[in-house]
């Protein structure tokens, strides 16, 4: 009798024994689609992450009231909301495998780098969906006005890549620990600090009041994302394998 997990394992394995990068990408896509599908079924992480952002933003908007918030604070607030929403939503990518009992099946079906890349892609998409909600809300509720959209979007995309890159492996680390939720935020914050500081600075430049092109910030975000993702690829096997 074919159980659900073995049926899934069969589907996730590459259908054709192709070789090279495209086969690898195919496997990564399969892991990503599996995660996406199960997420769309329950919408657990999506709800958590979006509702958290909405609630935080509403609370801040109430508190600020009539007063106009300066762009420095707005930039910082923006990334704080994204950071905490990410802490509430991105940590579960590996925990749900543990809870569903599909860890062994996933280990058999795909190599560690494939699993990591698939989960990373999933987290990036989750963050993108979050930001698609948060940015309009900021414009609507907090009066965000962006002077330099190109810089703003560049910081957003690169910052999200770095955020997802750093947190995915930490999510794998905490999946095997106790006190998972709190531990995720505790472990992620020191690692993410350079990213947050740079993203806040770059967003502040993009909002227009301070002078600056933001090239330094963009370069730092690119290097941060690259370094964290490469380090994660190299270290993931030690976390994932027994």
């Amino acid at each position, binding site marked *: 009798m074919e159980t659900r997990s073995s049926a899934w394992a069969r589907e996730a394995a590459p259908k054709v024994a192709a070789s090279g990068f495209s086969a690898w990408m195919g496997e990564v896509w399969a892991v990503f689609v599996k995660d996406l599908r199960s997420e769309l079924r329950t919408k657990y992480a999506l709800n958590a992450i979006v509702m958290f952002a909405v609630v935080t933003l509403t609370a801040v908007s109430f508190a600020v009231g009539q007063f106009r918030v300066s762009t420095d604070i707005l930039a910082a607030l923006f990334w704080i909301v994204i950071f905490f929403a990410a802490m509430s939503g991105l940590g579960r990518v590996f925990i749900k495998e543990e809870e569903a009992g599909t860890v062994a099946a996933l280990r058999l079906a795909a190599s560690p780098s494939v699993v990591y890349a698939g989960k990373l892609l999933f987290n990036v998409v989750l963050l993108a969906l979050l930001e698609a909600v948060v940015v309009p809300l900021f414009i609507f509720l907090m009066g965000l006005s962006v002077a330099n959209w190109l810089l703003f979007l560049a910081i957003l995309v690169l910052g999200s890549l770095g955020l997802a890159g*750093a947190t995915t*492996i*930490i999510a794998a*680390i*905490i999946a*095997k*620990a*106790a*006190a998972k939720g709190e*531990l995720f935020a*505790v*472990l992620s*914050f*020191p*690692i993410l*600090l*350079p*990213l947050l*500081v*740079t993203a806040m*600075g770059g967003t502040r430049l993009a909002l227009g009041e301070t002078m600056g092109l933001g090239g*330094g910030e963009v370069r*730092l975000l690119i*290097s*941060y994302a690259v*370094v*964290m993702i490469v*380090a*994660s690829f190299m*270290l993931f096997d*030690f*976390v994932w394998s027994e």
Partner: protein
Amino acid sequence: MSENTSKALKIALLVGQGLILVGAYLWVPPHEGLGNLGRIAIFHIPTAWVATVAFLVAMFYGIQYLRTRRLDNDLRSAASAELGLLFTILATITGTIFGRFTWGLQSGIWWNWDPRETAIFVLLLIYGAYFALRSAVADEERRASLSAVYSILAFVTVPFLIFVIPRVMFSLHPENALAGEGATAGILRNPRTMIIFLASLVSTTGIYIWTYSLRLRLGQLERRLLET
């Protein structure tokens, strides 16, 4: 480290640290700008230095564990991290005191998030997170590999911190302790201060090495007891 070496080191450190303490207050002249407050640099900077070294050692042994899978390497990593945490707390406290009674005297401000303060605080957070992780994992080998991975990840972000933070915030920290403008400049310019400072650096590192060897021996004995 053998028991005799440990004992010899202990006595040498006792004498040396005693001489440094006396020298720092009686032999070293007060700094022109800061007066007697400048003496704290002799004690503060070595603790920050040891805190960083301890982190590097912890990460090194973490890598060794991942390569060899010998739990002794994990023990070394944890021992160094414990001491690193202690020295980081010392560095943060002495640095805060330094800041409060120099630049913070008028404003009464204790903490200012200038680059070096932020960096030492982040080191504190990293150590805290490291121990939070260790206490949350029950299985010994998994704990060892997860802590090793985390220490490597944390290490990888440190260069970013060093380059990012100074550009974002204005620094109250004495940028170049040997030359420059301002009251905090030239803390180490006087040759006597430099001698005592270097001696303090060596002595504090010696304290770290000695305490580390003790902690390591303790941990190894504990493990051997548990095995029987």
